[in-house]
């Protein structure tokens, strides 16, 4: 793969295929020598982004696709994950660390991605997330 080009993958909205994508990207980061801490952050953020795309974006409809573009380089790993849903406004998602939200079993994906990645942004429609993990050291 040329250094600056993105690899493209399309999967149906099921968790086993999402896990394969996650493993593939993580494996490339491992080969590039990213630290254990970076690898954990990358896996966690991929897990959250893919779960959101499958569950919330595509409503776990196996007819709907999730499109992934990524490139793994020595200095950073960059990923776009898009679903076929209507999108959402991430600014409207309540802070899950608020005391009255602590016992809520869901709603932590975005804050985890924000905490573990160097960049997290959504497109205007809110159905594509852009993630960047820079090499820690």
């Amino acid at each position, binding site marked *: 793969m040329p250094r600056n080009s993105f690899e493209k993958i399309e999967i149906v909205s099921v968790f086993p295929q999402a896990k394969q994508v996650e493993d593939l990207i993580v494996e490339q980061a491992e080969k590039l020598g990213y630290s254990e801490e970076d690898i954990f952050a990358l*896996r966690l953020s991929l*897990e959250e982004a893919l779960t959101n795309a499958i569950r919330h974006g595509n409503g776990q409809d196996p007819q709907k696709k999730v499109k992934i573009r990524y490139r793994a380089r020595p200095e950073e790993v960059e990923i776009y994950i898009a679903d076929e849903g209507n999108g959402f406004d991430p600014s409207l998602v309540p802070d899950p660390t608020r005391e009255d939200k*602590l016992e809520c*079993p*869901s709603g*932590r994906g975005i804050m985890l991605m924000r905490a573990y990645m160097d960049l997290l942004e959504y497109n205007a429609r809110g159905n594509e997330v852009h993630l960047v993990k820079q090499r820690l050291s």
Partner: protein
Amino acid sequence: MSNLEISYSECQRNLVVKLAGAADMSQANMLRNQLETLVLGGKRNLILDLEDLEFICSLGLGAMIHLHTLCRKLGGNLGILNPQPQVRKVFKTTCLDQLFLIGNNQE
């Protein structure tokens, strides 16, 4: 990353549940369902031993929160033991270290 393995032992009035592997998107429902059955069957005091748990995502956390709420509702409790540093950091980042009692064997 290995699948989630669950094993059980009894300690006084507690059921110690040892988790090994990953509490991820493909395993969280299984974790929730297996332990929910036990709690509803009368095991209302759970200790989750996370010494060998290498990974957890928000769905895994959600399963534990659900079980915590269920145990409390039935008059029991759920505690966390021995999380690895990366897993402990996830609890801290999400402020769930304020919800769960998290300890080490030495404590």
